[in-house]
């Protein structure tokens, strides 16, 4: 038998350690401001991550727009304006949406795994702070990094697309005013019927009603109308001026969709909607990446999985209806985000028809919202659960 007697120090009574501690609610699941701030600092000081984030969300649009600005300034006939509606929609749906998601997911995966891989998780658990609070502190900290950068990239795109939008459209020498409504364009076409017929590019078949009219117009310099005429076309007697004006209106009407899409600067409501949409996508990327990395306890594989989800799985499964799996397809967050896309933007995952209609797996907006909320909640819950139950 061994007797455990009090040692000298204990027997003489230890000097009490000053009780300078105030109640700090460290068992609470709500993170403190200090936890969020220091987590923000930890992420912000990762140079490689920050450079990637800035390069993709700000660098890519800036380089693209700068090239367009310079090219247009040097050779305006070959290179169109740097801004405008078309450029805006292309950059928002094609760059900011997809790359914003991927970079946000990378930040999320980093935030969700580095404490484990770098050995800090154990130190943090030993503080006695609620593990749930430790997890939740990462969400505002990460979003405070991701969202401003995405917003800055978006703001740059908006600024250039508005300021560098063309004030008038040049159809092979014919200058059309900006921002006309369809009736106004009809009126303008009536007043400039010969120019419309000669210079508006429109492909009509040999049996078109317009054929007789367009062939009657003299475009000068031996050139025929800008309208392409199919093989086998024949010409007939001269037509009246009223017929020419009617044909010009008809051509303007047929061209209005392209005119409307490509000519105007992006409207305010589209800018606001698009901005919120892109920020929501980045938020989803971050939260899902955070949860997935926390669940797996590493960064590399979750990042790869997130890229595969965004670049391969979502485009394929959003456009192909698989009858027995259609409900599973509707559960894809990228598809849900496509259904919440502001009207006027091309689908980020392709699938636009010739008329601009999106051909995606059908889903109501209500279901889309539920899917998005579900992804945010489920991945947060999974990540937090693993954080709480993991051996440190």
């Amino acid at each position, binding site marked *: 038998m061994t007797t*455990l007697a*009090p*040692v000298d120090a204990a027997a003489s*009574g230890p000097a009490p*350690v000053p009780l300078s501690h105030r109640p700090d609610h460290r068992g609470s699941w709500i993170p403190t401001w200090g936890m969020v701030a220091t987590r923000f600092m*930890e992420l912000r000081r990762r*140079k490689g991550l920050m450079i990637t984030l800035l390069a993709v969300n700000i660098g890519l649009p800036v380089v693209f727009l700068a090239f367009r600005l310079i090219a247009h300034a040097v050779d305006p006939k070959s290179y169109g304006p740097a801004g405008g509606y078309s450029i805006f929609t292309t950059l928002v749906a094609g760059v900011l949406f997809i790359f914003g998601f991927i970079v946000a997911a990378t930040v999320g995966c980093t935030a969700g795994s580095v404490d484990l891989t770098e050995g800090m998780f154990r130190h*943090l658990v030993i*503080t006695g702070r*609620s593990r749930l609070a430790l997890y939740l502190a990462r969400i505002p900290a990460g979003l405070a990094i991701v969202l401003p950068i995405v917003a800055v990239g978006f703001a740059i795109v908006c600024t250039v697309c508005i300021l560098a939008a063309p004030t008038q459209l040049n159809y092979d020498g014919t200058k059309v005013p900006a921002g006309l409504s369809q009736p106004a364009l009809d009126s303008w076409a009536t007043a400039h019927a010969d120019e419309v017929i000669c210079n508006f590019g429109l492909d009509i078949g040999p049996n078109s009603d317009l054929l007789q009219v367009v062939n009657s117009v003299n475009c000068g310099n031996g050139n025929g109308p800008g309208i392409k005429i199919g093989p086998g076309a024949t010409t007939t007697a001269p037509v009246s001026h009223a017929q020419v004006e009617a044909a010009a209106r008809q051509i303007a009407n047929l061209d209005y969709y392209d005119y409307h899409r490509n000519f105007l600067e992006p409207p305010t409501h589209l800018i606001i909607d698009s901005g919120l949409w892109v920020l929501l996508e980045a938020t989803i990327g971050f939260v899902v990446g955070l949860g997935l990395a926390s669940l797996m306890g590493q960064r590399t594989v979750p990042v790869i999985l997130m890229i595969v989800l965004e670049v391969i799985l979502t485009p394929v499964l959003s456009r192909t209806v698989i009858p027995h799996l259609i409900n599973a397809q509707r559960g894809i967050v990228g598809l849900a985000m496509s259904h919440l896309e502001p009207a006027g933007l091309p689908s980020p995952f392709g699938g636009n028809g010739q008329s601009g209609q999106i051909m995606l797996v059908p889903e109501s907006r209500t279901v889309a919202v539920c899917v998005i909320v579900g992804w945010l909640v489920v991945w947060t819950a999974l990540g937090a659960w693993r954080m709480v139950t993991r051996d440190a």
Partner: protein
Amino acid sequence: MTTALADRPTAGPTGSEWAVETHGLTKRFGGNVAVDDVELLVPRGCAFGYLGPNGAGKTTLIRVLLGLTRADAGSMSLLGHAVPDHRAEALARVGAIVDEPRFHGHLTGRQNLQILAAAREPAARERISGALDRVGMGQRSDDKVSKYSMGMRQRLGVAACLLGDPQLLILDEPMNGLDPAGMQEMRDMILGLVDEGRTVMLSSHLLDEVERTCNAVAIVDRGRVIRQGSIHDLLSGSSVRVEVECSDPAAASALLSGRLPGADCEVEPDGIALLLPPDTGRDVIAEVNRVLVEGGISVYRLQLVQASLESWFLQVTSRLGESS
């Protein structure tokens, strides 16, 4: 082995009698029992060594105590707070290093401590500079941790422990990676912390360091605590070794056989070594000398070898090996 609580220490500031108390604590990893029915009592206000060979379950026990992994059975408390039920209250006054201390390499030592302080009470932030100075890291606190040596990380780990103004520090192999001067500094720091009334529990396999630093120890082997108590008491219960250098070792052994009950005599090339019962008095040693001289054997040297923690540890563990 039974542990009797002969004299329970007085309650500490939080009302508990023991800094660490476990009963029947068990942790398994599959079929391997890493912590096996451990009964451990660490008095307040002392340096307590938790000794054992590699793989004995020292780190696992610490991880269980700190809530880093769950126990499969048993109960435990830190500073009088039952764990895991009152884990937050318990860990609020505990600082610990488990395994090798690792930090975010891209941040400075101070920034790492800021992260840890933010997870503690607001006052912890004000202790950062003091903690860094105390471990001798004040000058290097604004360097990135990736540039730190192992010893500097170890010291930063101790600084992290001090952020919570702890009553109990649990240090897992704190001497690892330290040079002799660093070990001396660490030893002085531990003793200083104990002088302030804090309890330091350290695990180690460096017996000499533990003997110099600790007041009490527990020996763990294959997950079980096999002995615990103050070092003085434990060593006083070990055999007394007397080395005798003489002219005729074989004759000396024959002379002493039967004259010293309970003694073992080993014949060595230039003498004999006697292992006497723990309570052997000094007069027995004089008797050995008298018997040998009267038997016509020249005695060149007769030395009582003080029992060390190392020799005692080896004695205990070798006995265990024999019994198993």
